[in-house]
């Protein structure tokens, strides 16, 4: 399962996850974008679904571990979320790879799939993340979620429900954007690299 090119793909996607925070800061974009590498890894390794889940999860996990050491120490707590995103990306989002790479681009199909897969990824991410958000952060992970959570709490919702509803409000938008970027990067990736990632003919490393 883990041939050398696949190890390289995992490392590239993990490094991308880590570095995107840096890029986002330099270009002054008002968003976070920490799972693009995870989604992209699944797209690259598809159609080998099991390998895609494993490689995407490892890429995401290494990304959050290294980010946890240097940038944000609370990211590693969302490891289950990373696994969930890897699974959704490998089993669902990756079914759109042909559309993503089609030349010329068929815009309605591309946009439709990005939104559908993005929203589903966002919902799954919100549900899996909610317990961590509640226990570790008291429901508030930053400026984006603070006021949404406050609104739900003020209306008498329990904390877990508020965190879940807050996540369901913000995550689908965030994840749709990340699926879009991952799809664009996948579209641009050279054929040679994708061909290298096919399973080895003989037994792999």
């Amino acid at each position: 399962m883990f041939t050398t090119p696949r190890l390289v793909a995992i490392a590239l996607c993990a490094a991308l996850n880590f570095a995107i925070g840096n890029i986002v800061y330099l270009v002054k974009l008002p968003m976070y974008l920490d799972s693009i590498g995870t989604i992209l890894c699944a797209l690259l390794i598809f159609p080998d679904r099991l390998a895609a889940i494993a490689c995407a999860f490892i890429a995401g996990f290494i990304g959050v571990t290294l980010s946890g050491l240097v940038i944000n120490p609370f990211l590693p707590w969302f490891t289950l979320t990373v696994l969930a995103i890897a699974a959704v990306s490998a089993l669902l989002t990756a079914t759109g790879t042909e559309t993503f790479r089609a030349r010329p681009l068929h815009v309605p199909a591309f946009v439709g799939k990005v939104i559908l897969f993005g929203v589903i990824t966002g919902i799954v991410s919100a549900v899996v993340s909610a317990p961590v958000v509640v226990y570790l952060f008291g429901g508030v992970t930053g400026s984006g979620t603070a006021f949404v959570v406050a609104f739900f709490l003020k209306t008498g919702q329990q904390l877990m429900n508020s965190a879940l509803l807050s996540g369901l409000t913000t995550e689908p938008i965030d994840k749709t954007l990340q699926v879009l970027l991952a799809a664009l990067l996948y579209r641009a990736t050279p054929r040679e690299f994708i061909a290298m990632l096919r399973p080895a003919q003989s037994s792999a490393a």
Partner: protein
Amino acid sequence: MTPNGAVLFGFLVIAGALIARDLGSLAVILAIALIFALGSRERIWSALAWSGGIVLPLALFMALVWIGIVGRAPAEIAANTEGSRTAAAFFVAIICLRLFIIAFAIQAASLHFAGWTPLRFVGALSAPPVVKKLLVLTLSLIETILQAVDRARTALIAAGLITRRHSWRNLRHGWILVQTVWLTVVTIAIGRTRDKWPIEDTLGRLDGALASNTPRLNSADFAWTALAIAGAAAALGLR
């Protein structure tokens, strides 16, 4: 202290922080982390400042939400009682102190290895060889990506596609920087994987370089681990 010991210590301190439910037990855990960090005297201040800097914005938003807007703690919401801002303040303080301990424990653990090269650190970890290779590869690619970001950003600013400051143009075109960096680094990786590594057996050489004579755990590790377990037990006991 060995890297394995530091990882173990970090896990135990963080576990203790998660078990702790009140300010008293969290203070015990924090004290243990501080004692541990005192070994790296000069860097302890930057570690404290960094951890504080990470937690402070979260603390402000949490205070705004729980004390300012909601005015009661989650337990009071669940029990459907009137509640008080004081209870909310305690809730926020516990969460923030826990977050601070987690951030600081990680920094304190890595302080002990500030002079180590990444290869030496990863080599000393008890982990499967493929995991060590991945860590080393990722760390190397991060440097390549960051260098590519710097160069590509220069070129794209010169071309007028992105700007130095916040702008709508950056929202529209910022993704091009990500794409250029990705493709640049993939191209470098293709060259290495196709040509350099098979000819040199570079990955085989890496295995040799990662082989380490450092013991998996030493006496310092056992001492700190015992202290961390004692702290966790104290936290459990104080609940």
